[in-house]
């Protein structure tokens, strides 16, 4: 009986929780279940979700990328600087930050694959290095339209409307960042679940030794995962800049742990038991809906972390209790 309950919670727990939360908030607030509010919720989770997708890829190959927050911060100020300081055309403003993300991913892969530092420690180091880089790059200032420069005078450029549309505009009544998030979630889901590469990613994470002995170049796969993670972090950075309309310093730092939490909550979505793109989206959604509802109910913001932590604990408890049950019935 207890085993069955855990198995049920493992499969449908996160979704049941999401439905219960929505029902509860709908009953206490008439504003909660409205189109505007849901559009708000989705927009608020879009950046975290994109960041979390990158983390998902590294967790799939049994790695862990702690540097995504810093990479996002770097991409945020870099994007802003390209517009405000250098007044570059839009396509370069969108392309160059991605290249920065690729570079961070390659640096992480170098530490992990070539030098052999464990994933968590390597990306912890690069988290500091990249965070320091982005502060040094702006000399500690945030970047905004026509800002005064330390070299004297004011910056030549400003954010174009086309760029701000990416973060603030609507398409067919849905915010643009939500479109981008949806497309990336679906693309990641298809890649990981339906393509040959996705299969190789999961197998590498499941048993690197067996994968090697099946002819997979595990180092190459790990490198790919970290580069993808860097790219997603950069996209999150670009979105953030476009959403806020300025290059805020340290934008990504608070989002790192939220992204990681979303991925782990996602483990227990539909009984996957492993990192997965849809789960990551649901994880971000559960946390997003909960915070939105609690805000409507006037819960003070400083109590929010208690809620986030509790959701994470519940999700992890179900995942690991299920794994323990399963392994005890499987062992000889």
């Amino acid at each position, binding site marked *: 009986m207890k085993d069955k309950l855990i198995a049920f919670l493992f499969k449908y727990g996160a979704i049941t929780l999401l439905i219960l939360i929505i029902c509860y908030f709908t009953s206490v607030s008439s504003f909660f279940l409205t189109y505007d509010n849901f559009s708000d919720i989705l927009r608020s989770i879009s950046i975290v979700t994109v960041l979390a997708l990158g983390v998902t890829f590294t967790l799939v190959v049994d790695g862990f990328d702690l540097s995504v927050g810093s990479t996002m911060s770097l991409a945020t100020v870099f994007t802003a600087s390209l517009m405000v300081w250098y007044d570059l055309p839009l396509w370069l403003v969108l392309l160059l930050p991605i290249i920065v993300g690729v570079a961070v991913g390659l640096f992480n892969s170098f530490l992990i694959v070539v030098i052999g530092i464990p994933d968590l420690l390597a990306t912890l180091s690069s988290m500091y290095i990249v965070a320091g880089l982005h502060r040094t790059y702006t000399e500690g200032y945030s970047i905004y339209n026509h800002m005064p420069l330390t070299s004297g005078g004011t910056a030549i450029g400003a954010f174009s409307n086309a760029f701000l549309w990416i973060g603030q505009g609507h398409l067919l009544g849905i915010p643009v960042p939500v479109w981008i998030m949806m497309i990336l979630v679906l693309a990641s889901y*298809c890649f990981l679940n*339906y*393509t*040959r590469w996705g*299969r*190789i990613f*999961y*197998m590498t994470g*499941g*048993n690197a*030794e*067996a*994968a*090697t*002995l*099946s*002819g*997979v*170049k595990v180092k190459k796969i790990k490198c790919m995962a970290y580069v993808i993670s860097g790219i997603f972090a950069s996209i999150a950075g670009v979105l953030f800049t476009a959403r806020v309309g300025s290059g805020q310093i340290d934008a990504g730092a608070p989002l790192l742990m939220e992204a990681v939490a979303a991925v782990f909550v996602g483990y227990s979505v539909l009984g996957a038991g492993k990192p997965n793109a849809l789960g990551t989206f649901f994880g971000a959604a559960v946390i997003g809906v909960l915070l939105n509802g609690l805000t409507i109910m006037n819960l003070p913001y400083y109590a929010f972390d208690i809620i986030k932590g509790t959701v994470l604990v519940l999700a992890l408890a179900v995942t690991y209790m299920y794994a323990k049950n399963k392994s005890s019935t*499987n062992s*000889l």
Partner: protein
Amino acid sequence: MSEVVLEMKKISKSFGQVMALRDGELVVHKGEIHALLGANGAGKSTLMKILSGVYRQDQGEILVNNEEALFQHPRDAKEKGIFCVYQEVDTAIVPQLTVAENIMLDRFSQEKGWFFSRKELHRQAQEALTLLDVNDMDLNQAASNLSLAKKQLVLIARALVQTTKVIIFDEPTAPLSHREAEKLFHVIRQLRGKGIGCIFITHRLPEVFAIADVVTVMRDGRRISTVPIDQITQEMVIEQMLGEVWHEESKIMHSYKRGEEVLALKNINLGKLQNISLNVYEGEVVGIAGLVGAGKTELAKTIFGNTPAKSGEIMVSGKKVQLKHPKAAIACGITHIPEERRKEGLFINETISKNVTFPQLKKYVRAGFMNRKAERKATEEVISTLQVKTKDAEVEVNHLSGGNQQKIVIGKWLSDEAKIYLFDEPTKGVDIGAKREILKLIQQLAKEGKAILYFSSEIQELLTVCHRVLVMYDGKFVKEFTQEKATKEKILLYASGGKEVNHEGQIDRISI
């Protein structure tokens, strides 16, 4: 005879459907060196793990000093004075601690109180080492600096600071040089003099006759005999170890005519592998015989490109190839069925289908996406050819029995492109029915013209399927037998480091 210190009676233990021990019996007297012998899978290590409290027996009892003892945890066994010096000494040594601290480690975890005196610690540790006649060890150096042989001494000393009745030596000489082994024997004799019962497990027969007082031979989880060393000969031991279990099984290999050369190794060197050369021909099954630790697995992994050779050449179908990664080996048509199937061969939490199609995923891609239908069809084919017992292709590999898991590992590699098969202990942990099917499958592959290297320490199996057997000892090929000339006794003799002394093909003495 002196008094009995340990008695194990009718011990049985099964893992799932596998009976590892049926009737484990062992009687050890005070001050006796007791050799425990048996082929792989005879149940020696299971019996010893029960004795040291790692496993619990299903049935049977253990008497220490004629009192029944119940071991539920390794700590219980230690409290009764039973210690084990494991083969893998590094798992029991804490490298950062000093020699003295390592010797006294068990004391730390047992004694109450908050503080300990460094002086007292050193005095007791030194005392233990003196008992062993070891006077040249610096108590203050970190254990990580010690050689393997010295680490063993530390573990033995650790047992001596307690009231020890029995010490189990689990293949202690496997990693040692000849001189280090001699020294260890001196220490073991020293222990005998102190009245401690020593259980000595080894695969090297000459050592048994050099040191043991009593020999117990096990086979198929049973005790076959226990006799004083002066009443038994090497030939008798080998006969008892092998038994006649496989007698009804005739040689199932087909006659074969030597085809084209498919694989050639020339002077391969890597780590313990020394100057390995060999040729394998189309349709031929070549057995590589050797005991645990002889270097068979290392050789298989080198051929497969997982641990590329330091020097030497590998030729596939007459062409020199560079095998730096399994990917390159697979491209040359080489496949590898690894020894540690759960660790190296399978994705244990994935479905049969995902495991089977993994090496050739490209075949199942349609318009960029995986074609699940084609995958399932291919998997069902493998399931029916290899007679895997399963509900369907979407069952997790975890739920299959050992034999069926092994079939999946083999099934991964059944394709037209594969020319060379490396089987590393393919029947390990597999029941007798599946074993026979696997051996038949290997014969079938050979008939299709594949070249097969069969690495095994199961000599009877080698005799059953191989056209030719090469014997490995300590990283070198020491002997080659054709199918007609090979016998169990001769292979085991060479694999244990012995040599035939006279020329009539009869063994009368074994020497290293």
